[in-house]
């Protein structure tokens, strides 16, 4: 049976893993390579490394960090941040990534989705969407807006419309981050996740708000997510994936166990 995936995310800045709350308030959480291996050993189904300041500061992705992290990592490994062209993506794949996550650059030039897919396959392209509910709208979820540049810039695009376009252009998965719930550990935005998941055929990874096993179970059951991503819940020894997955499985969700 196909299991739901628990993905450990490493937000990297200046070569260190950091964690913020609602995209600000950064604290240091360790070395990316060391943490990636700890998560893989701890039962995480995938590892995502996001260079969170790459676009903002106009830097390229930290290829050395990617290389070091990818060596001896035998679970799927996604890298995002600062990938603006098929050449940037190729460099990241060369360094050992299995998938790339693109966000601002896909909004700026949606053809990029197809260009990377043409060389590396659609399965290798994740389109990341930073979403915020449209407060005061009659349907705040349906009209949720896409933000770019690390959540700094509104785009005027509706999340559901953009997710559908990304799929049509050949994205392999959608990584949906709720800016409203991110880092607060109060649960995922299940309603937004469900609406996006029902709008597309490709897998949707929910992100933002993981604080407990119950939150994961809820986003799989209610939010219809195919995978869920979390960062801070795993850092500082809050829990490991194996214990978390056992709890989620107890709620009736198929999990990769033992792992």
């Amino acid at each position, binding site marked *: 049976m196909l*299991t739901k995936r628990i993905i450990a995310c490493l937000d990297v800045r200046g070569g260190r893993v950091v964690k913020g709350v609602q995209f600000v308030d950064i604290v240091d959480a360790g070395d990316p390579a060391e943490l990636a291996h700890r998560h893989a050993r701890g039962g995480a189904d995938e590892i995502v490394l996001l260079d969170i300041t790459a676009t903002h500061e106009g830097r390229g992705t930290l290829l050395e960090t990617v290389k070091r992290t990818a060596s001896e990592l*035998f679970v799927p490994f996604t890298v995002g941040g600062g990938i603006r062209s098929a050449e940037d993506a190729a460099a990241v794949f060369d*360094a050992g990534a299995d998938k790339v996550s693109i966000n601002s650059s896909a909004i700026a030039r949606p053809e990029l989705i197809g260009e990377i897919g043409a060389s590396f396959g659609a399965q290798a392209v994740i389109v990341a969407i930073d979403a915020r509910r449209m407060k005061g709208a009659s349907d705040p979820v349906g009209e949720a807006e896409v933000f770019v540049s690390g959540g700094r810039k509104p785009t005027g695009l509706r999340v559901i419309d953009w997710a559908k376009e990304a799929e049509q252009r050949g994205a392999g998965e959608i990584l949906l981050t709720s800016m409203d719930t991110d880092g607060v550990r109060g649960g995922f935005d299940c309603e937004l996740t469900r609406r996006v998941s029902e709008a597309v055929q490709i897998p949707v990874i929910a992100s933002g708000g993981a604080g407990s096993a119950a939150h994961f179970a809820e986003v799989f059951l209610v939010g219809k997510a*195919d995978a869920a991503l979390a960062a801070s819940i795993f850092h500082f020894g809050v829990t490991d994936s194996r214990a978390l997955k056992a709890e989620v499985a107890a709620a009736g969700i198929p999990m*990769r166990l033992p792992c």
Partner: protein
Amino acid sequence: MIAIIDYKAGNLTSVVKALRFLGAKDVVVTQSPQDVLRADKIVLPGVGHFRSTQLLEDLGLTKATREAVRTDTPFLGICVGLQWLYAGSTEAPEAAGLGHFAGECERFPATFEGHDLKSPHVGWNSLENIRADSRLLAGIGPGSFVYYTHSWRAPVSADTAAATMYGGAFTAAVERDNVMGVQFHPEKSAETGLQVLKNFLAL
């Protein structure tokens, strides 16, 4: 020497890295039919579109592979590399497969038993009905999880070494004598995947 055939169908880094991690010394990424003919083992990875396999024919690699497997060189196809072992795929009807195994690869149905079925099939799924005589899957128990990402799949037949359930059963691994294939990504399937590659290296 282990020849990893490069036909521009996605990223080969992970496969090469995993084989080297397991101690394989002489791993060569190649497009040369001569390398394929003199190789001790052949690996055909691939995660792209089935039409990429046309390049194998164009470069003379199909012919070389046919000759190499006829003389008992162990062959492992991964993902599209497994699909290529069949007659063809509806993904690219114009590109012929090797035809070593009977049948054609087809897309997952949009619905199964009244429910929508998402495609691609992405994530960790379990190996079932593992054939006891499989050398590739030696030491791997039923229910072991492996990582998939694909939209087309090979049919179950007598050569199927293990099946996986998603919209019905499909071939997770195929094996007849020295010719083998896996639909999943052993290089991304943690300990279970490394065991598969270890088994192949030991042939």
